[in-house]
């Protein structure tokens, strides 16, 4: 028998974790708005999710880096650059790039979408495992910016004027936007909704 705060007529502040009676609209400690359940959570999740997807498409189609040496200019997209590295034998680096730039963002998209769908319609995964997934997505989201960091560092370091220069491509911007949007999407998901499914399961079980 699981007891939720909502069952007890309580609501917890998500900022300072102070529990208030359910009729409190604002936390008296930190002034945060109190809401037992964020009813618009899924809306925001999906909105950010879609924006992230939109941003992610050009991030893969357009070049991430524009490398200009003396007379030669090369523009590489993320995947092309990783494959190029793999072709040159740098499988480790290629794997890192692919994981950081392709696998993780895509995984995040799938994870968020799965969680959002699970909140709405239920899922086979128990809510505990869903919450672990949510935690991983939350935690790992920021590391997706590693590509953007690399591009930023390279561009600021390699500015040899005529001889060679590296400038960020349009993909760098959209990729950063995509990461931001997915982070916001993950953040928008109210994890308490996950537990609501447990309640319904519990209520179902006796029935």
């Amino acid at each position, binding site marked *: 028998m699981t007891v939720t705060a909502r069952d*007890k*007529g309580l609501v917890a502040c998500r900022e300072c974790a102070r529990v208030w009676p359910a009729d409190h609209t604002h936390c008296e400690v930190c002034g945060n708005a109190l809401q037992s359940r964020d009813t618009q959570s899924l809306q925001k999740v999906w*909105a*950010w999710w879609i924006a992230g997807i939109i941003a992610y498409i050009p991030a893969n189609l357009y070049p991430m880096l524009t490398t200009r040496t003396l*007379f030669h200019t090369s523009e590489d997209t993320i995947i092309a650059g990783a494959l190029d590295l793999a072709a040159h034998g740098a499988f480790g680096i290629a794997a890192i790039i692919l994981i950081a730039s392709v696998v993780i963002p895509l995984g995040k998209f799938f994870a968020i979408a799965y969680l959002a769908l699970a909140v709405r319609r239920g899922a086979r995964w128990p809510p505990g495992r869903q919450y672990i997934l949510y935690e991983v997505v939350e935690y790992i989201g920021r590391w997706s910016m590693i590509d953007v960091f690399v591009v930023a560092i390279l561009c600021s370091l390699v500015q040899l004027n005529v001889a060679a220069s590296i400038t960020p491509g349009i993909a760098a911007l959209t990729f950063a936007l995509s990461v931001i949007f997915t982070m916001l999407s993950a953040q928008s998901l109210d994890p308490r909704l996950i537990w609501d499914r447990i309640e319904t399961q519990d209520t179902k079980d006796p029935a």
Partner: protein
Amino acid sequence: MSSDIPDIPQTGQDRRGLFAGAHWVWLVPIAAVLTAVWVALQAYNDQGPLVQIVFDDAAGILPNETELRFRNVAVGIVEDVQFNDDLSRVLVDVRLDKTVAPFVDAEAAFWIVRPQVTTSGVSGLETVLSGVYIEGTWDTVPGGLASLHEANDRAPLITTFKRGTVIELRSTRAAGLSANTPILFKGIEVGRLGEPTISVNGQWVSAPAILYEPHDQLVTTATRFWDTSGFSLSVGPSGASLDFSSVASLISGGITFGTLVSGGEPLRAGLVYEVHPNEAAARNSVFEGSSGAVVRLTLIFDDNVSGLTADAAVEWRGLRIGRVANVSGIVDPDRFGDSRVRLLSTVEINTARLGIDANLSRSEAIDFLDERVVEGLRARLVNASLLAGGLKVELITDPDAPSATINREGDPFPLFPVTDSEVSDVALSAEGVLERVNALPVEELLDSAIRFLDNAAALVASDEIRETPGEILGLLSDARGVIGSDEVQALPEDLRVLMTDLQAASADVRGLLADVRDAQAVDRLLAAVDQVGLAAASAETALDDLPDLTERIATFIDGANALPLDALITQATDFAREAQILLSSDDIRAAPGAVVQAFDELSGVLNDITEANTADQLSAALTDASAAATAVEEAVAGLPSVVERLDRIAAGAEEVELDTLATELEAVLATASRLFGDASDADLPDALAGALAEAEAALAELRAGGLIDSANATMSSAREAAAAIETAADELPALANRLNTTLAQAQGTLRGYEEGSAFSRETLRALNEIERAAKALTDLARTIQRNPNSLILGR
């Protein structure tokens, strides 16, 4: 428990609308979608058209990287590189900028700019590192987009920033025509050549050329182009001249032009000009005129002579009417019957230069030539230049040539008959001469000459030779003394006197004969015979056994009777008559003194002679004989030895050649008679008088004995001279021996030389003459030694 759950106020539920409950976050994906749509629309809107350029070779072209540039500004980028269906071409899709698209019409030209290092410069250097790019050019008039273009291999002559007139230059040799060759005018580049191509028939190399504006106005139809590449060195009567236009053209070649005559029409695009090898040829071409059809003929020369090359002249009466197009060999045993290599050359004859109508067709021109061939026109090879040694083809008219016609079925062109070549290999002859000169043993000759001269010098330096001139001088002075001596000088005079004396002697003989007649020798002889007859009769009577003696005596008498005394007497009579006639002439009488004097002298001489007169002696002998006969007669009895002696006497008498005597007398008389006959001429008396005077003087001198003295003196002088000559002659053998030795040496030396050479022969001849001279000298010396008086006698 759920009833305990406080109602959670549902904010916003009261303002439900279309977007009721929608969170503002939805604006973000909407904005993203809008942005994407806007970007896509923008990109699509900005995208220019795609054109396809067809290349043979797309070296260095990369999709999305290789640019299309116009005036060195990127106006497009290659989007795709692919093959056409049969892989024969490369199709390059180029995305054009929207702004230039209308200008890329059908006239546009594209080519790949690659790094190029040529003699005229370096271009496209920047593409070494950045990769190639496609350069395009089009005019400034928008003509509508053409989506398919054929690329050029290299930059076209006319580009948007180099405008001009395109003409065609052609040449028979590719030397001057190469791509990018500048066309110079007074040293300034006014044009440029394009890529040369070879004409279909292989006769020409032609190349498009552009003359930039405004320099194209310098060219008219009367302009001639020539090649200025390299340099030309010409040596002429005005000295040597070295000519080269510029160092650049020295390396890369160059073409210049000049309008040598006025009256040409203005230049228009597409005109064809011929590039002459040099300025002189270009100038000549103005006068030659190049209009007229070209008739190609095949010549097959039996002589396989080297030296005939393509472009050699074909001349007729010294005028160049064509050229040799090519030269090759032909071996055709079926046609010629042997497998010799024959010279097959194709000549091109310009009918305009033959003086026939330039509008004649080719077959009509051949008809014209065929008529000339029937008249004897033939082709032959002659030396083009004695020094250069090249050959040219000359058309000559040989009326004696066997009849022939142009074989129109000849392969590859109508076969023109040929005649014997007139090729003299000067070089070979000169080489032969030089070889023979080279083969001459000059050094040995010089050595021998030096040895000969050494020997000659030693000989000349010898004391004997040095003395020889002195001795010869002495000899000559002696001889001069001998000849100049009064005695010798007097010799002719003496001889004349002697002759006169002889004449006188003959007169004496004449007188002697008269004396003989006077003495009546015959009578006496007869008397003696009578006496002998008497003696014989006596002896006959005394000695019957002496018939032989009688016979002999009879024979003797018969011989005596047979003597031509009658003729003798007749001659004498004639002589007397002649003498009488002579003496009766007035001239003779006119010089009585001389005659008298001469006769006095003569009579004196004759007296002298008479004193020892043969007639007397004869008569005495006859008397003796008669006495002997008497003695015989007396001693006849019993003295057989007497008979023998008589016999011997008779035999001796028989041996007395009375025949001869009589004959000679007759001859003398005849001579005398002739003499007197001749003397009847008018000039005789003077001569006779002179002769008489001479005879007188001679006789006087004879008397005085001066001649003898003179002769004696002469002889003594001659003896002295002979002695001197003998002394000199003693030295001569030594000299001759030396000369002989020298000559033997010289001869031995010279024998080693080649007998065929003129020098050797001359030398041998000279030496032989010297030898002969030496021999003659030896002979002379020997003769003089043996016969010193020959110096005087001259034999």
